[in-house]
């Protein structure tokens, strides 16, 4: 997006100095007590307005998800007449069952966030395990694991999700998440393996080894922490994907119709496309903003941590 050069922006938080110093140098000198990794990343992130907007949206959606029962104007049951347009009592109107759309959209944030976070968490865990095993053992194990990875990566994700989801008799939202976790890990595994192989050759790993550190210690203390930034960036960029995948799957009829996720709301609104536009519009807008927030945040994080990723 519009990235202001660090040159002009460093003026902002250092008004009384000449901004001739490089940004790394500035951070070291400036407020060293606060110079934790997190703080440094945050300060880099803050340079891009769009990333901050993204972070704000993500934060807002998370808060809504947490306090939905408190801020929702009604319960999730029937509270009024069926399919009323937006009004003072029902800002987003009511759905076919006479439920308040605003309440449903607020509650929907819980499901969408759960899907995004849980699916990506599973991906990271499986991807880490497989990538590390492949990178550590190498040889035949590496060959087999990477072959499987390539096979899944070469298949289009959405059709693969559809095919896999159909095998489950009960399609609760957790099953959907599980399938996403099982299908989505290959890219992460490939990245982890690559990073593992690169970091393994680093001088500090050699130093640790020469000091007699065990393999486990090297992996846990030296290799793993250095992969974190890459993993976090890819994970944050994948979250909106899984939120949208869940909505798409649900819309196509492969979701959990009882979950009241935004996808379910859109699907139900589809039946009344002509007569009740609000039923389909508001959950869709919520989906759109959430995914935009995560995208902006992920882009900002990638720039702040200076990670090269594939553009999906």
């Amino acid at each position, binding site marked *: *997006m519009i990235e202001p050069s660090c040159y002009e922006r460093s003026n902002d938080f250092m008004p009384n100095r000449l901004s001739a110093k490089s940004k790394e140098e500035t951070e070291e000198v400036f407020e060293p007590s606060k110079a934790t990794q997190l703080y440094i990343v945050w300060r880099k992130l803050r340079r891009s307005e769009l990333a901050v907007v993204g972070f704000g949206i993500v934060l807002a959606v998370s808060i809504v998800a947490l306090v939905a029962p408190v801020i929702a104007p009604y319960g999730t049951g029937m509270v009024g007449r069926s399919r009323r347009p937006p009004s003072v009592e029902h800002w987003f109107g009511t759905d076919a069952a006479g439920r308040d759309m605003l309440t449903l959209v607020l509650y929907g944030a819980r499901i969408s966030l759960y899907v995004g976070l849980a699916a990506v968490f599973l991906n990271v865990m499986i991807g880490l395990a497989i990538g590390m095993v492949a990178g550590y053992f190498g040889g035949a194990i590496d060959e087999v694991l990477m072959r499987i990875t390539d096979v899944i990566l070469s*298949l*289009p*994700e959405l059709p693969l999700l559809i095919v896999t989801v159909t095998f489950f008799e009960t399609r609760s939202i957790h099953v959907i998440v599980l399938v996403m976790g099982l299908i989505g890990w290959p890219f992460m595994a490939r990245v982890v393996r690559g990073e593992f192989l690169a970091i393994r050759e680093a001088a500090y790993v050699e130093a640790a080894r020469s000091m007699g550190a065990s393999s486990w210690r090297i992996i846990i203390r030296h290799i793993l922490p250095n992969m974190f930034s890459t993993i976090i960036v890819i994970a944050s960029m994948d979250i909106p994907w899984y939120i949208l995948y869940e909505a*798409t799957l649900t*819309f196509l009829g492969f979701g959990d119709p009882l979950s009241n996720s935004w996808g379910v709301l859109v699907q139900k609104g589809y039946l009344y496309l002509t007569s009740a536009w609000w039923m389909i519009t508001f959950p869709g807008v919520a989906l759109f903003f959430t995914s935009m927030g995560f995208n902006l945040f992920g882009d900002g994080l990638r720039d702040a941590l200076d990670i090269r990723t594939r*553009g999906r």
Partner: protein
Amino acid sequence: MTLRTYVIRRLILIVPTFFFISMFVFALIHLAPGDPVLAMVRRNPPPPEVMAQIRRELGLDQPVYTQYLIWVGKVLRGDLGFSYVSYRPVWTMISEKVWNTLELMLVAEVVSVAIAIVLGVIAAVKHYSITDALCSLGALVGYSMPNFWMALMAILIFSMQLGWFPRYGMLTQGVTFATPFHALLDHLKHLVLPTAILVLGWTAYLFRMVRSSMLEVLRQDYITTARAKGLRERVVIYKHALRNALLPVVTYEAYSIGFLLGGAAVIENIFGWPGLGRLMVEQAGVRDYTTVMGLSMIIALMVLLANLCADIAYAVIDPRIRYD
């Protein structure tokens, strides 16, 4: 090595990959819970003896690897199997729909590539300008918006409210057209909305790719050199920069054919476009394993061929690339 031997070698390499993919999908489909015979006769389950008979006839009582070998043997003879859910050969079902999907995808692809390259170059050249900001914002909206929702909104606005475009199918049903030209016109009208949605989403990704790739190339020394030689800016940008900037875009393009197929599946379902994606969703919905297996193979083949094309295009565009 010449380009020809390179292409032949790559074609041969496709074979083992294809086998791996078919093994994977076959295992996925056949090891999954759920009884295909039960799915087949769901409406009217016959007595258990008959079920066992059907199972024996379909070879479902054999171990999975035997079933796989039987399946491969049939596929090598050009037989993708018979769907007992639709009571039609799988190949017939696929072949009558494959062109519809290809039409949708190709039109969307060509239009989005054209738009993305033009806008991407402009945005990169005028970095930090208003144009750049607007294009980037548009791209952000394009890739954040759920595809299916965008399609529904388009239907709501352009076919329900304004009545500009038909909302369903490939041709208006029950109308006899005066000339083939009228039929074509009617078909094109049906094509507009589905492709427009695909293009919107797809252009957004490609644009980001072209723009960032272009920005990176414009920083290179050889661009400065080209300018220092006194070349006109047009030549610098289109001959020196764009050609190099397109390299990663080409790879990305091929990689994402699967992604485009997924998008097409959604769009086909919403707009009632009789293509492969719609077939996939319908048959997966009724657990038609034979058709799903055949479809997966066709899709995998399309992806592999697209990758091959990208590699060849890569070699043609970039003379630095050796074929070994």
